């Protein structure tokens, strides 16, 4: 099975000059090289926009010529008036999910706006993509003071409503363990994790989590263009997983998860 990348972006990033970032062509080049069939693509500038909805039109324009492979994953602001209009626009553009960055929008990650927004998304059949961190805290721009998304907020949001489904990306081992084992099995089943921030061998946090949390809870994400996508593929290669397990991580789990709860 060819992979689906749930943690990809296009557009310039304000804190670093990522020369490749602006283009869909670069993303597609990497996807072709690495056997990635589809990518759920966010728009990097929207992370910092006061009104990210305006950038979603730009995202749609960028990915439209490649709609069979690049799926727009727009950013919404749960605190903005007429949030529901932005959600409807996301549905209209065929988004498979919506990205929320409360830590960059001055919102309480588990506050009322986020609880309402994730519930509304769930009712609409869309998962929310939550990003624990854009960059490693050690290397951030001095002006990038946004806190990391807290594990406690994931637990709060998922418990808030049975329709809520969360795709959490860029989480490390401790974060995943704290959330997974802090939820009931039913609650934990409504969370999917990408593997981009997990260490492979020799420490092998990925291998440990596949054995404890279960491989069905994981999906494939790269973080490109900020992060080199080869690192995730290399990690899977080093893990020597059974073909069926690798297929599930690369896309099967995502499809089944969407079908079951969508």
């Amino acid at each position, binding site marked *: 099975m060819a992979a689906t990348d749930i943690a990809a972006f296009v557009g310039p990033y304000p804190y*670093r*000059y*990522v*020369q*490749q970032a602006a283009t869909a062509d670069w993303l597609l080049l990497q996807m072709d*090289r690495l056997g990635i069939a589809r990518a759920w693509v966010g728009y990097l500038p929207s992370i910092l926009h006061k009104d990210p909805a305006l950038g979603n039109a730009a995202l749609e324009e960028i990915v439209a010529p490649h709609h069979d492979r690049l799926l727009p994953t727009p950013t919404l602001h749960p605190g903005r008036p007429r949030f529901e209009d932005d959600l409807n626009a996301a549905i209209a553009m065929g988004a498979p999910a919506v990205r929320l960055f409360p830590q960059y929008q001055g919102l309480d990650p588990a506050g009322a706006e986020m609880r309402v927004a994730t519930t509304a998304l769930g009712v609409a059949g869309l998962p929310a993509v939550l990003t624990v961190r854009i960059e*490693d805290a*050690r*290397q951030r721009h*001095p002006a990038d003071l946004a806190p990391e998304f807290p594990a406690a907020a994931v637990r709060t949001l998922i418990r808030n409503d049975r329709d809520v489904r969360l795709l959490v990306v860029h989480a490390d081992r401790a974060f995943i363990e704290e959330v997974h084992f802090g939820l009931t099995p039913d609650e934990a089943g409504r969370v999917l994790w990408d593997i981009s921030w997990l*260490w*492979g*061998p*020799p*420490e*092998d946090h990925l291998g440990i989590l596949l054995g404890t949390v279960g491989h069905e809870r994981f999906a494939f994400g790269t973080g*490109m*263009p*900020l*992060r*080199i*996508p*080869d*690192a*995730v*593929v*290399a*990690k899977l*290669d*080093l893990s*020597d997983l059974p073909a069926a397990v690798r297929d599930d991580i690369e896309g099967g789990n995502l499809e089944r998860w969407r079908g079951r709860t969508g």
Partner: protein
Amino acid sequence: MLIDVHAHFFTERSGRGDWRDVNARRLAAGERMGITAHVASILGSWGHRSPTYFPSPGDVTHANEAMLELQRAHPGRVFGYCVVNPNYAEHALDEVTCRLEAGMVGIKLAASRRANDPLLDPLAEAAMEWGVPVLQHVWQHRRRDWPGQEASDAVELAELADRHPGTQFILAHLGGGGDWSHTLRVVQGRGNIWIDLSGSGVDTDMVHQALETVGPAQLVWGTDVTMGTGWGKLRYLESLGLHEDDLNLIRGGNARAIFPAGVFDGGD
């Protein structure tokens, strides 16, 4: 030829029950990746008995002995750096003499003392006399003190390198945290500092800027604790269409020039 200039192993003093498994997984992953030489260190007891970056003399000695055992157990494949704590100056120099005589191929300076501290001068001189490089743990553009270590940045390493122009220095883990673009500006054009690409950081622009700023002749490949990230960076480099000679410099050609002549010939 693929030389990992920044590897680590563990011992029974590391306080973890899986230390043998982790060591074995490193070697197995190396096989898979095509690593021909692991140049490695053991940072004392990794915090179990004394702090990782401020190891006690006893933990330093034990770790270096264990590293030498690994080197002997895997001839031509595993090579040791001698770890020291420069605050124990006499012990540090004794360790360097003893371990290099026994076949270690480099000196590892972690974060017990800033790189520009005069306490490091005798160690840098010893490295030159023995013809081995110094691998210096670096926090890329340290803007404040971080707990658990007296980390150095590229500016401080450059001061040491300027004082010892005949010594070869490897600036550790460009992807290991901090502002790598600051480091690249500092190292650019310096003849006796090489940058290792190891670390968990896999920033796309880091690789591009490293190639453009310091170039392949000043880059060496390594993994540090996370091997998948090292392999990912290597694969990405291979995808960029670099000239084969430049790629080979990064894969191991530069390392062969930095470490004692012929030391890696058995692993090719």
